[in-house]
């Protein structure tokens, strides 16, 4: 049974009771909430996730709770909670899903130190995994969403999870968070995309989440071998440019942008070194998604033939 099949009432009952179990692949979370409207949003962006029992071990047990006192009624607010703590300031109640997603990501970044966590999107096709580091203004999430619309398997939009022993990439499958103009870009690029509701004027602007595709969800426990590291850089009207990049510089950029490279020390150095040494590395400047995907298709095809 899929989460979408629970319906709003079924999801609401789980959120208010034992919790809604979400298996992201590398991490399992149990979500609880008494916030109205969250059930419908979760039903859309986690539609293809299987319904699981909420007992047993979970890496994260967290959720949202309506603020107490006056804030329950006047400009209502919601709090993110984890392990009985409220680590953030409350958010407006009508931004429930963005707060939950950011909170869950924060928990993962704080806790998942058995693996190296890169700040990167990861997609895969024909056995070739592509790491897209998230540097500011890169347009990484938009490109990840567009690649998924063209048949790439989504492993993650936010976390590139690297297994320390062999540098394989593990899926951490959560919805792709699109912001501001990217929302309409993806709507036009892939009209059938499973976009959740738009949350206007959050702290990060307008936000909407793209549901992971069913095929990616079904393969969320399947690692992928890293083969390409692409540093995307979007620029309106920019012609396509694909330039090889020094692997040493790629290592430096990716490690500096990692969530936990520092604390993992030598093990992270070895794992990232293995990953980068085995990948082709490019800087991709683009102004048109179709052109960018065409270039990436070419690189993936070339690597697939060499493997």
């Amino acid at each position, binding site marked *: 049974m899929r989460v979408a099949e629970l319906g709003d009432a079924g999801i609401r009952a789980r959120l208010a009771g034992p919790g809604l179990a979400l298996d992201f692949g590398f991490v399992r979370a149990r979500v609880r909430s008494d916030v109205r409207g969250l059930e419908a949003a979760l039903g859309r962006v986690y539609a293809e996730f299987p319904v699981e029992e909420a007992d047993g071990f979970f890496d994260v047990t967290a959720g949202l709770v309506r603020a107490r006192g006056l804030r329950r009624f006047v400009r209502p607010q919601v709090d993110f909670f984890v392990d009985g703590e409220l680590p953030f300031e409350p958010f407006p109640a009508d931004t429930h899903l963005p707060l939950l997603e950011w909170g869950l990501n924060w928990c993962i970044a704080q806790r998942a130190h058995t693996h190296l966590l890169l700040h990167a999107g990861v997609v895969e096709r024909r056995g070739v995994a592509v790491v897209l580091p998230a540097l500011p203004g890169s347009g990484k999430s938009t490109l990840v969403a567009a690649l998924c619309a063209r048949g790439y398997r989504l492993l993650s939009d936010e976390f590139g999870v690297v297994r320390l022993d062999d540098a394989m990439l593990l899926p951490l499958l959560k919805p792709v968070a699109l912001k501001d103009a990217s929302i309409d870009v993806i709507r036009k690029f892939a009209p059938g995309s499973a976009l959740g509701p738009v949350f206007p004027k959050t702290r990060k602007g307008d936000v909407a989440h793209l549901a992971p595709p069913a095929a990616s969800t079904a393969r969320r426990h399947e690692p992928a071998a890293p083969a390409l590291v692409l540093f995307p850089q979007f620029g309106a009207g920019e012609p396509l440019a694909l330039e090889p990049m*020094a*692997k*040493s*510089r790629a*290592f*430096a950029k990716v*490690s500096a942008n990692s969530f936990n*490279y*520092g604390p993992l*020390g*030598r093990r992270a*150095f*070895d794992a990232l*070194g293995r990953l*980068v*040494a085995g990948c082709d590395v490019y800087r991709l400047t683009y102004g048109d998604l179709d052109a960018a995907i065409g270039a990436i298709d070419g690189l993936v095809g070339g690597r697939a033939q060499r493997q």
Partner: protein
Amino acid sequence: MRWHLVSPADTACLRLDDEALVFNPARWETHLLNAAAALVLDALVAGPGSVEEIVAAVAREVEVPDGFAGQVAELLGQLEALGLVAARA
């Protein structure tokens, strides 16, 4: 004066293209070394040496410019400040 790695057994060095990344186990820091620094480090991975011996080791790999010994001495000072190498009289 002879130069040596501070932690020769645990210092990890990864050559990528003509540059190198080095992990300093004492400080848990990673440094990106340019091609010249990478060759100097290679020489010290092989064993302790004087500036003249390091210059000779590098010269076996690449052509070195006049005055290279001075550059090596300056570089060793920088690597010492990073805690990667030390000198013994």
